[in-house]
């Protein structure tokens, strides 16, 4: 199945105005109809939680209502429809897309991908001695006004009451490949049409937590993650975890609380894998999740006060 990755996540939210402001300040472009797009056209879509056009909720506090996957072509969408019709309803939508559910009750959509090619957007280059790919001479790495925009919808993380059952569904029915796994917690999976380490990660939880833990968009590199996150914090948004760098997938991360009932992350520089890759497995925990972690601190006073002087809270 040539599924490329998530094209959009649809949420039924309590506070439309707060979510719209949040997603805009996160860096997505409001394009109308509750749609907030990254540079390549992938998006978060919000509607009122009681909007009758949304698929049913999960019966928990989660506001995620649908994950829409982008496929390479209509033939892939049709093949998925045929496969899922074997044991469940598949709704045909007007634009050729389809809608159904996975084995855990998460609503899924499949469509010909809306992803646009990103042109003239270089990734982050470093002046590492010995490396051929270096930043050109007279080109500076950072400036105060530099862009740090979400480029593409990277991945979504589900809380699932039965991770083994969920993994089997995505592997057997939709052709996802498990790249790594946290023992007893859940798999990192990528659909066959992308080399990203994961576009879906699932974590085993009690049923009352079923839903979305977080989603994230790829930025251009670690500097953009740090910059976008710093700007977000400066606007008053609440950092939850990060910035840091994950071990599995190697992606840089910074997570924030959100009014969408889940965390929202900035990420960058994820590992790419193909079929030669052998999945690793480790126990889930701080050591396995993060190679390193920094904490944002608003104040920094180089040198500090004279010895013995009173220090302000937060200064060290």
């Amino acid at each position, binding site marked *: 199945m040539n599924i490329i990755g998530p094209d959009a996540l649809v949420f039924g939210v309590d506070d439309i105005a*707060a979510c719209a402001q949040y997603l805009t300040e996160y860096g997505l472009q409001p394009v109308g109809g509750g749609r907030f797009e990254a540079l390549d056209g992938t998006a978060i879509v919000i509607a009122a939680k009681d909007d009758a056009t949304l698929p049913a909720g999960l019966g*928990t*506090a*989660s506001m995620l209502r649908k994950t829409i996957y982008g496929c390479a072509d209509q033939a892939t969408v049709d093949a998925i429809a045929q496969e899922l019709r074997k044991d469940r309803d598949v709704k045909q939508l007007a634009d050729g897309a389809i809608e159904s559910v996975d084995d855990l009750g998460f609503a899924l959509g499949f469509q010909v991908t809306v992803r646009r090619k990103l042109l003239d957007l270089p990734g982050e280059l470093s002046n590492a001695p010995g490396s051929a790919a270096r930043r050109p001479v007279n080109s500076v790495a950072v400036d105060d006004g530099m862009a740090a925009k979400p480029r593409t919808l990277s991945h979504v993380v589900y809380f699932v009451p039965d991770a083994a059952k969920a993994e089997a569904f995505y592997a057997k029915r939709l052709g996802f490949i498990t790249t790594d796994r946290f023992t007893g917690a859940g798999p990192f999976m990528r659909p066959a049409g992308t080399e990203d380490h994961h576009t879906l990660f699932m974590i085993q939880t009690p049923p009352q937590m079923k*839903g979305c833990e977080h989603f994230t968009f790829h930025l251009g590199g670690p500097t953009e993650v740090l910059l976008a996150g710093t700007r977000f914090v400066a606007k*008053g948004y609440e950092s939850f975890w990060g910035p840091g760098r994950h071990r599995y997938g190697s992606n840089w991360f910074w997570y924030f*609380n959100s*009014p969408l*009932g889940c*965390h929202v992350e900035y990420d960058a520089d994820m590992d790419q894998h193909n079929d030669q890759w052998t999945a690793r497995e480790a126990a889930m925990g701080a050591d396995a999740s993060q190679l390193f972690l920094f904490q944002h601190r608003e104040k920094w006073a180089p040198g500090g006060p004279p010895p013995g002087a009173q220090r302000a809270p937060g200064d060290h």
Partner: protein
Amino acid sequence: MQEVIRLCHSGEIAEGSARGFDPKGSGRDTMFVVRRDGLHAWRNACPHWTGTSMAWRKDAYLNADGSRIVCAAHGAQFDIWSGACILGPCIGESLVRVTLIESEEGTLSVDISQLETST
């Protein structure tokens, strides 16, 4: 050790709104006060995940109509008056109450020893 710290004047918290405070000067709000049919003060620590700060933005602790406290990490909803989680990952658990001291002039203070231990 008992140490009473002033938070604000009670008139600075409007009906149906919430406000976070950092009386210990930790750099992050460690408690918040909601005014809805009276004043209700809670530790800013979701029972679902040890020590999780609950707002999604400074002072944003309530849902759209101001009827519930919400944790913006995974959406848990809490009763404003009892602190009990009524929807979400930590159903049956509860926020930890902070006792407010209100002076006759309306100044709100707390004894910060209440905020000393982590949940």
